[in-house]
């Protein structure tokens, strides 16, 4: 571990944790513009998190320690994931500790705890949301793994760092296998981040919620952490997508600090474009009936498998 490596790790983590709400603010802003509405400020998610931190949390009498611990576990898991995904540099001390499969595990850990916490209080909506979340999760995870396997087969490794380094050096040609995997990844990301068409982050209708139904009982700093973790999750998925499919601009090996500082604006530019595309997808789609979600995620899985087969059989 070099000092630059440690520095890269620190900067990357700080950038992720600090910029994640900004990405959410940007997506919300684009959504509003696309609907011909006046947009809220970019800083709105920060204001909300600040407001929630200043408020006193209210906790149900029958809440167990799981309910209190979950916000910290979820936030911790998302911060850890932010440290693992190579978004600025590949010389990351943390990245060697966990590969792509472990990353899926970290996301699953957060999901399990948030679902447990939702059921902990015993309200109808919490259990409803937890049940739906597990349905989505159990369909999304295999599809996500398939995407990782395709990338791993190309680079002969499940380490994210190796994958990024390999993919960044290929000639600028379209790999059909990666194209399939890319579409599958986009679909999984929409589902995992509770976005339209699978879930609707803006709804106030309790009966239709998935993610929001699970966190209805949270307030104050707990809710702030969960909201922050949600934006971090979106940030992580976006960075993961960029690292796998558009890795150019990520600093490789033990580079100098200047390269690292250059990587930040490149990342911001790529995220801005990605965020706009997300808002565009959300504006153009209606929400799926919940029992269409298996079809949606089944398609993602199928595309993931197709990507892998194309690579194995055609070597493309």
């Amino acid at each position, binding site marked *: 571990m070099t000092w630059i490596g440690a520095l890269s790790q620190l900067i990357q983590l700080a950038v992720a944790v600090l910029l994640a709400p900004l990405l959410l603010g940007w997506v919300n802003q684009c959504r509003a513009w696309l*609907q011909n509405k006046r947009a809220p400020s970019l800083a709105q998610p920060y204001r909300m998190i600040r407001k929630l931190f200043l408020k006193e949390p209210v906790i149900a009498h029958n809440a167990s320690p799981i309910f209190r611990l979950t916000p910290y576990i979820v936030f911790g898991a998302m911060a850890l994931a932010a440290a693992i995904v190579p978004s600025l540099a590949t010389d990351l001390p943390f990245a060697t500790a966990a590969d792509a499969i472990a990353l899926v595990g970290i996301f699953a850990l957060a999901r399990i705890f948030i679902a447990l916490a939702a059921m902990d209080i015993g309200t*109808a909506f919490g259990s409803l949301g937890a049940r739906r979340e597990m349905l989505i999760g159990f369909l999304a995870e295999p599809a996500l793994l398939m995407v990782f396997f395709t990338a791993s087969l190309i680079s002969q490794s499940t380490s994210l760092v190796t994958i990024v380094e390999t993919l960044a050096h290929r000639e600028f040609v379209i790999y059909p296998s990666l194209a399939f995997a890319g579409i599958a990844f986009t679909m999984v990301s929409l589902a995992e981040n509770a976005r339209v*068409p699978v879930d609707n982050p803006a709804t*106030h209708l*309790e009966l239709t919620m998935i993610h929001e139904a699970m966190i209805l009982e949270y307030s104050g700093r707990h809710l702030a952490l969960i909201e922050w973790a949600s934006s971090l999750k979106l940030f992580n998925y976006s960075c993961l997508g960029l690292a796998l499919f558009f890795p150019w601009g990520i600093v490789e090996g033990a580079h100098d600090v200047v390269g690292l500082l250059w990587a930040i604006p490149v990342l911001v530019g790529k995220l801005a474009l990605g965020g706009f595309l997300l808002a565009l997808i959300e*504006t153009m*789609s*209606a*929400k799926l*009936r919940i029992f269409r979600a298996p079809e949606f995620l089944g398609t993602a899985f199928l595309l993931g498998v197709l990507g892998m087969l194309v690579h194995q059989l055609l070597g493309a």
Partner: protein
Amino acid sequence: MDLLGLGLEASVLTGACHLRRCRVDAEDLVTVALGVREEHGRLVALWGSDERDRENCFHLHLAFEDAQGLLVLDLPLAEEMPSYPDLSEIFPAATRMQRAAYDLFGFWAIGPDQRFWVRHAAWPDTEFPLRRDFDGSRQWPAEPEEYPFVRVAGEGVHEIPVGPVHAGIIEPGHFRFQVVGEKVLRLEQRLGYVHKGIEKRFEELPAHSAHRLAGRISGDTTVAWAWAWAMAYEQAAEIQPPVRALWLRGVLLELERVANHLGDLGYLGNDGGFAFGLAQFSRLKEVVLRANQAAFGHRLLMDRIIPGGVSTDLTPAARATLREFLPGLAAELGELRTIFDDHAGLQDRFMSTGRVTPELAASLGLSGLAGRASGQARDLRVDYPATPYDRVEVRRCGGVAGDVAARVALRFDEIFESLRLLHRFLGELPEGEWRTEAPPPPAGAHGFGWVEAWRGPVFLALEAGPDGGLRRVHAHDPSWENWPVLEHAVMGNIVPDFPLINKSFNLSYSGQDL
């Protein structure tokens, strides 16, 4: 005239609201009800009145719609233990009205469902607020109440209670779902949370200013309620409003219909997760509300219709502006309709969701907009056109699919038809007076109002009291008969589709809780 060959003598009330009225006994009531059912008629309203000071008895009143139009029956009930035969077997819509009649009057329908309906333990169960000896100013401490919901038992069946306080800004109502997984086995509603005592309040108001209260029975239907009030008042007072006023009332009612349908279409898109629809329709609705403000001085057109005419005339300039703005609205609406129709995701949510078949709609007495989407082709503007509707040949809109998609399509059709009507009304608006003197009706005079509001027909009955007061007023919103149909529409659907189905009916809480 003879009624159904029973030898019952019916008197005829003329005016804008033409009806037959007849006094019956309990046996004849059932016979007449069965006869109305036979003719595919429906129960319009059921209410009571306290006549102990005049006749030493109570009266139960029922309004039916049969092949000839409106028929009102009066059934005297004994002072002690007032009871009458249960009509819910003949007209399922009667169930809740009968329960409310118990809560408010202590009239006992000899039938299966004896639970309270509008009483939420806010007054003792020995007190009946609409009896004349009840003091409305008295207060009681709130008591805890047990309401026996119907439960479904079985493996994997569980309950989801929703409301009365909701996450969005809507009126209060409680929905108890019995579900297995995501599938709804049964939905039961509990309403009455916004019971404000409107009917009791009428009795304390002077008749000449009570139109303001009538316009607030359900705020989104204020024009229709004000018109129904004016119609009833004018019938009781035997006043003929000027023709120009009637045409202006038509303009007001259609503007209200357009604004509400636009708002609903936006929310239907939004509940399908299509926020673009909400943004666009909200904008269009706002355009209409601002046009209302500019032309009539009130965004929601409250208190524009008053007994004797209208409270504001339409200036030639405002009339020209309104006329100019209609074609643009129609063009934009056409574009949005194409977007809705071509959007696969949205149509997938709308189609076959919350279906009410025409047979079910007929047997439950589904009325108004939701009824027309399920093959119940009733529209007061077509069936019993009062001025100005008798001059413009209103086209009947409707469908038979009975799903959310049908109710969405019907809203589009009705807006286009309303825009056409507005064009005619504004183009052919007669000149002249728009308001006439409206002295209070004489004591004991009866009046009725029946108007096709955007949600369905609203019905109002009033009896004037002495000294320019009101003795009894009853207001019936179509939500009364349509809420129970929603319970059926949801059955077999999945839980997350409920908000969409609910919005496609968009029923009033305030209008039925009163």
